[in-house]
């Protein structure tokens, strides 16, 4: 009986194999997994919208400055002095000593050079320092996108290495790495970033241009734990899978095992995680810039452009010059949202089980 079942299995297996090979070739065109993912990705409208948003931001930030520089020959820190007369009207109501109510009306005219309203030459006007806002938006995007990509790439590298070590070697290596991950996960992210950035900006021996590198290092330091967790979890799970056992029996080397089997299986989740992480880094970076702890003035950053509207520095810009801060905010939202749409689309494309 035992022999019989053995035989049956074998027979069944080969039969099926023959069948699928020939049938598949006859009726279907087998497409590769990556193309399947691409197809599923492009099926969702949201992912296409996300992709368009990101392409737009990229072109805007990386191609835009080149065009501006080539055509009009100026950069983000070019100061434009545009003279105009600004009317300042003050009104107030008060009760005089005689009991009557008086209206106070005062109109004064001042000549201003900066804060020009949108015009044909300067589509979004100029800001408090006389910089062209439209151009600064482009350079701000450059900074944000560059930082986010570099940070995510280093984060992935760190996370994959450490998470991979923890997951693959287990035992005490795992214990040590995971406790470090726990500790980092408990660090309050924003406050620590603030402390570090504040310290860096107040130390005079560090040149202002280098602050951005420190910033990236800090952002990486706060973010790698997520990647490490995913990689470790995936490896632990995959180690239990049958095809890993099969690979084990063939006696291939540890490193090959990881590179050929574990990494490709972990990739989908990592790519999704990285895409969503890009948006997160941009939010962190713009918050630091908003607080004046990010990219130093006079370089442009979206966060610091919005900071102009901080009501603690007076309501004037917040109330009367939306052209100075609203576009920067919209660009942040578009970028982060674009990354979320793509990330979500990729997740659904990689893992169709949730669909249907």
């Amino acid at each position, binding site marked *: 009986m035992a022999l019989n079942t053995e035989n049956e299995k074998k027979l069944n297996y080969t039969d099926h194999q023959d069948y699928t090979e020939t049938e598949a070739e006859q009726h279907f065109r087998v497409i590769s997994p990556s193309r399947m993912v691409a197809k599923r990705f492009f099926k969702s409208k949201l992912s296409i919208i996300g992709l368009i948003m990101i392409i737009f931001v990229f072109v805007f930030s990386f191609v835009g400055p080149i065009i501006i520089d080539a055509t009009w020959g100026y950069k983000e820190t070019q100061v434009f002095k545009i003279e105009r007369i600004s009317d300042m009207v003050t009104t107030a109501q008060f009760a005089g000593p005689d009991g009557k109510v008086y209206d106070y009306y005062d109109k004064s005219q001042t000549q201003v050079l900066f804060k020009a309203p949108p015009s044909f030459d300067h589509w979004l006007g100029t800001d408090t320092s006389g910089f062209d806002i439209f151009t600064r938006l482009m350079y701000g995007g450059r900074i944000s996108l560059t930082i986010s990509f570099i940070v995510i790439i280093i984060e992935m590298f760190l996370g994959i290495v450490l998470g991979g070590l923890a997951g693959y070697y287990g035992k005490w290596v795992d214990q040590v790495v995971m406790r470090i991950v726990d500790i980092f*996960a408990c660090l309050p992210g924003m406050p620590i970033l603030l*402390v570090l950035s504040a310290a860096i900006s107040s130390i005079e021996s560090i040149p202002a241009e280098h602050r951005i590198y420190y910033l990236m290092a800090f952002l990486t330091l706060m973010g790698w734990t997520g990647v490490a967790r995913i990689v470790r979890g995936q490896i632990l799970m995959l180690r239990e899978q049958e095809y890993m056992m099969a690979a084990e029996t063939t006696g291939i080397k540890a490193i090959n095992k990881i590179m050929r089997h574990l990494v490709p299986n972990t990739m989908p989740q990592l790519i999704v995680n990285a895409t969503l992480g890009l948006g997160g880094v941009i939010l962190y970076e713009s918050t630091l810039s908003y607080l004046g702890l990010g990219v130093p003035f006079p370089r442009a950053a979206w966060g610091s452009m919005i900071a102009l509207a901080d009501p603690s520095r007076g309501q004037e810009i917040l109330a009367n010059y939306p052209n100075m801060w609203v576009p920067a905010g919209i660009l942040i939202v578009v970028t982060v949202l674009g990354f979320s749409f793509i990330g979500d689309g990729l997740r659904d494309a990689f893992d169709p089980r949730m669909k249907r």
Partner: protein
Amino acid sequence: MWKYLLKRIALAILILVGVSVLIYMLTMLMPADYIDNQTSAALQSGAMTKEDVQRLKELYGLADKSFTGIIKSYTSWLKSTVTGDLGHSFVYGKPVTDVLSEYIWISFMIAFISYILQIIIGIPMGIKASVNQYSAYDYSVSVFAMMGASLPSFFLSALLMNVLAIKLGLFPLQGLTTATKIFAQNAHFQIFLDKAWHLVLPISVLTLLGVGGTMKYTRTNMLEVLNSDYIRTARAKGLSEKVVTYKHAFRNTMIPLVTSLSGMLPSLFGGAMITETVFAIPGIGYMALRATTQGDIPFIMGYNMFLAILTVLGMLISDIMYMVVDPRVKLS
């Protein structure tokens, strides 16, 4: 169960010690001249003496950077921290613990109200979206949730201020009380109303930013539950769709929801740095941001440790709540 809990608490303490070492090292990374930079103002105003500055450098291991020196300073810092002495803030001129206990309540109130709002808005919307998967409602809820997660708090605040406070004049722009109004001593109710009126915008900002996450989390978990076998069983029993959704499915969705939402509770005391600052609400987040940018090292150490404790506490509460709501975990 108790054994498990004890283990968790021991692990939490271990993590906290690790966090303290890390925060301590970060402070130590600051060069000594940073202290001089930051304390010069305090020195001049008389808030600190030269001895204070020297003691500070010693306490934070900035004076003696040898290995033993660092260990010594860390242990002395740890000793005083364990006894509840977090040092003396030099921006605010009083013990850090006093600053914390004074300002966390307003932060907690704002965060708590927004937390409740997030729950009562986010969960029903998430359920409805999951029940009508792929409908127009579902898509708009998802997009709205992602919008919320993509908006920087300072930008949303600025937008709301521009429209609701300046253009429409519905709410005050900043602060917690109206400076131009003078209230009678016993007009508690008016004072309360005035404060509440000031808090509408910050609370709306926090709610708008957070509600999407609750919504999406509810939706994802609900979808998973709705596809399970026992929901089919419930339907096969002849239960109405309402009972199936709200009793059988939601009771299961509650497990992850309660776990994560209860884990958030301690963090409500931590303050919302950016939002509080933008609206100039004197909460702990606002105080911390000011202290941080001014290099108030005792406050920085104390506040960050406080936040770390809140996080660890949140994790513990999550664990305990998981055992409470999921019958499957109780025995094992």
